[in-house]
């Protein structure tokens, strides 16, 4: 009981912006709006919002590994792709009866995490850090993309699932919840919306608790000064590996949800552009905070989509410009800068009132 309460206390702490009744009141308000919104919207728009939400998990994974942990990973889309393909291969082979799609979701995320254990062990216990970590993870990602892109021939199949090369896999079953009478199929509208929203809230709050715990303290300590952290008696490689694996699982969750959302997954979801975009969302939002990462990702995604109407090449150029502006104006992130400014304003106002 006591331990349970102390978990809730960790929702606030040095590693996360936002505390007190004002913040949580706003949080509740946003959540209420998010819960009510499908009632006032159409299926297409709701489905589109699900698409935005899906990407937030991979952004949070990068926030964790890069923003808090200080290791820039280009490998998040690799885990995204592995889990996406994993879900496709499992469900195309075993179908969607008896709630198997939910098992496949968990299994696909676990496969991505397992891959991260292997890759992470090799990197962190081999003391690969800094730029080299970025290079290794990028190389792995692009290798996977190249590999999947050349699997067009009929000999490339796992059971009944053809890999289909550059065109990717499609027609895997959507998430299906077994239910007496009729199973509930979560198509990419209201049903999937509530599931993904629920997962998002859970992951966001769980990460807040994790980062404000003693584990989170060690993670930011490693970012600030790995040598000092080790000389306080922490086996930093172990903590880096655990962070990397949690991040991979989150990226994998993104990948599975993306796959069930559109019922397809292609190698280009692991390509150079796909690998770069999450970096931009997170950098623009503010990589060192969970809330700014979530807000930044949603805002930039919405802007990106709005611009894509005028041509996707312009939208990509805009992304580049946005990244450069961020680095020049607010290296810690535009959204985080605004949040901190609002925080200072609020405390000044309460001071004056008090």
């Amino acid at each position, binding site marked *: 009981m006591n331990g349970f309460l102390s978990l809730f206390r960790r929702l606030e702490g*040095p590693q996360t912006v936002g505390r007190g009744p004002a913040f949580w009141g706003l949080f509740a308000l946003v959540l209420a709006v998010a819960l009510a919104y499908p009632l006032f919207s159409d299926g297409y728009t709701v489905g589109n919002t699900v698409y935005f939400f899906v990407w937030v998990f991979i952004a949070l994974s990068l926030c964790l590994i890069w923003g808090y942990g200080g290791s820039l990973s280009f490998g998040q889309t690799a885990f995204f792709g592995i889990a996406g393909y994993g879900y496709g291969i499992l469900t195309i082979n075993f179908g969607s009866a008896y709630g198997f799609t939910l098992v496949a979701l968990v299994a696909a995320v676990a496969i991505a995490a397992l891959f991260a254990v292997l890759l992470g062990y090799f990197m962190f216990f081999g003391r690969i850090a800094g730029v080299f970590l970025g290079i290794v993870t990028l190389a792995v990602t692009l290798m996977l993309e190249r590999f999947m892109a050349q699997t067009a021939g009929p000999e490339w199949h796992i059971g009944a699932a053809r890999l289909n090369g550059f065109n990717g896999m499609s027609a895997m079953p959507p998430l299906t919840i077994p239910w007496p009478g009729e199973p509930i199929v979560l198509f990419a509208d209201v049903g999937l919306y509530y599931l993904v929203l629920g997962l998002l809230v859970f992951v966001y709050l769980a990460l807040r608790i994790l980062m404000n715990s*003693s584990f989170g*303290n*060690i993670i*930011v*300590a490693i*970012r*600030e*000064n790995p*040598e*000092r*952290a*080790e*000389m*306080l*008696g*922490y*086996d*930093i490689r172990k903590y880096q590996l655990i962070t990397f694996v949690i991040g991979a699982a989150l990226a994998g969750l993104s990948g599975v949800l993306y796959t069930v959302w559109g019922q397809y997954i292609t190698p280009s979801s692991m390509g150079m552009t796909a690998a770069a975009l999450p970096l931009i969302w997170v950098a623009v939002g503010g990589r060192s905070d969970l809330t700014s990462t979530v807000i930044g990702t949603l805002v930039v995604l919405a802007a990106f989509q709005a611009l894509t109407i005028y041509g996707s090449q312009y939208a990509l150029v805009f992304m580049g410009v946005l990244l450069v502006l961020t680095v020049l104006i607010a290296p810690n992130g535009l959204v985080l800068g605004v949040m901190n400014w609002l925080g200072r304003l609020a405390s000044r106002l309460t001071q004056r009132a008090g």
Partner: protein
Amino acid sequence: MSLLELRKLNKHFGGLHVTNSVDLTLQTGEIHCLIGPNGAGKSTLFRLILGEHHPGSGDILFAGENITALKSFARIHRGLSVKFQVPGVFKGLSVRQNLEIALQSRQRGAELNAEIARLLAFLGLESEQAQIAGNLSHGQKQWLEIGMAVSLKPRLLLLDEPTAGMSPEETHMTGEMVQRLNADGMTVLAIEHDMAFVRQVAHRVTVLHLGQVFAQGSIDEIVADERVAAIYLGQAHA
């Protein structure tokens, strides 16, 4: 009884013989100062003791155990702790959080808060506890890092130039801090250029020169040694 024993320790950086067959024994309970000109290999010796560098040959014994092959964090668990030459505080985090990170593996909750308060008072950093460590003065950073190193309650405390950048008064205070820790049973090995500090605290002094143990003795014997004065020629010393 000896706490730390270095036996025929050697380390090369390319062609540079930075640690040359070093034998050094620390007695439990002593304050031992390591001096020597710039580039003598003092910090490198610390890194060998801590396992950040691995010796080409030789052995490191701590409390009778051969720790030569142990990882750094495991050596810390055995009772070693260090303050680096360049202050290694967590710059982006608050002073309080710096101490919390150092202490959290041994204490929790109210006990942890009490220990942090005690350390802040010991270091004279109470009013700075909410500040970002990167904003502290150089001397304050040194103290904070000493505090983090001390908080592990080590059997052997390694201090690499603990008073660099401090005023004579601050240096003296640091000396008193070291003496208090030593009175509580901590063995101390300190690298220091400030001879006033060495005179204040050292029970024994070892001079390192070109990677070799050049001389050893009390501070008076070392200061009287003309060979030692010769290697410091051109450098300020007491």
